[in-house]
């Protein structure tokens, strides 16, 4: 088996895991199990990033999304899901509306993908210059400092600085919003 066959097999395995666990996130009503399926889905998408040669983005997905954001969400679940709140069931009327909206959106997206007027074929596009080598870390780091191999490409120094200030603002804002306050009236024990 050559490299292309392995690539295809790995793609279908990762795609099935990602889509299947994303659907299970929707269908599960227990919030803790939803978090577990979301973990599987995000990890499979990180595998897809590695398959596309985006090694730095895949590693960042694993570190920040799976390691950071999801742990944050699980902390939120642990702080709030007490007793009956862990299983909030959706009324069937909402399921009906959501199924109609979701299926029509899916049909729209698939129709757009299979539209013969749009040329999605990759033969004319496959000669990418710098991306698919699988060694993108140095290029990304240099681009974040404003240095690009192609002098016409855009620099990312200013967005990088804005993101750092934004993270500081988020840190202060989240700590201010979530600080421990004295409750006005204690909850009735159930």
């Amino acid at each position, binding site marked *: 088996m050559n490299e*292309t066959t392995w690539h*295809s097999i790995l793609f279908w395995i990762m*795609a099935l895991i*990602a*889509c299947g666990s*994303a*659907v299970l*996130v*929707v269908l599960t009503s227990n*919030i803790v199990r*939803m978090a577990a399926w979301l973990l599987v*889905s995000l990890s499979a*998408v990180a595998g*897809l*990033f590695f398959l*596309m040669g*985006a090694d*730095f*983005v895949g590693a*960042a*997905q694993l570190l*920040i*999304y799976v390691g*950071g954001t*999801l742990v*944050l*969400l699980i*902390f*939120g679940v642990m702080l*709030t899901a007490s007793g009956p*709140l862990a299983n909030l069931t*959706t009324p069937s009327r*909402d399921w009906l509306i*959501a199924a109609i*909206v979701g299926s029509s*959106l*899916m049909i729209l*997206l*698939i129709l757009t*993908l299979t539209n013969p007027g749009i040329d*999605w074929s*990759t033969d004319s*596009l*496959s*000669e*990418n*210059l710098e*991306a*698919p080598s699988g060694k*993108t870390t140095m290029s*990304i780091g240099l681009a974040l400092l404003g240095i690009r191999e*192609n002098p016409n*490409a855009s620099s990312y120094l200013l967005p990088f600085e804005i*993101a750092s200030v934004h993270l500081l603002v*988020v*840190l202060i804002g*989240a*700590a201010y*919003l*979530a600080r421990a306050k004295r409750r006005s009236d204690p909850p009735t024990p159930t």
Partner: protein
Amino acid sequence: MTPIGLSPYLTVGAVLFVAGVVCMATKRNAVGILMGVELVLNAANLNFVAFNRFGKLGLDGQMFALFVIVLAAAEAAVALAIVLNFYNNHYTIDVDHGEQLHG
């Protein structure tokens, strides 16, 4: 076997996006709605990296994916703080009970 092209990746992104939208629409738990947002952002990321791989963008798609990851982490932190405040004020996590601003 033909090599995997662009449209299978876009199909996976579409499935993730629809799953996220339906998750946002149906869940009553506020943290569940946050998980739907994460799925939608992840689908957008997948499309960015796929167009980066199969297009002539150079590295720009991957840079956008990185910024989306950073923004998603920040959004999760702030939204979780808001959810904790909501829980402290209402003693529930059900978003259907947040109706003080109803007209």
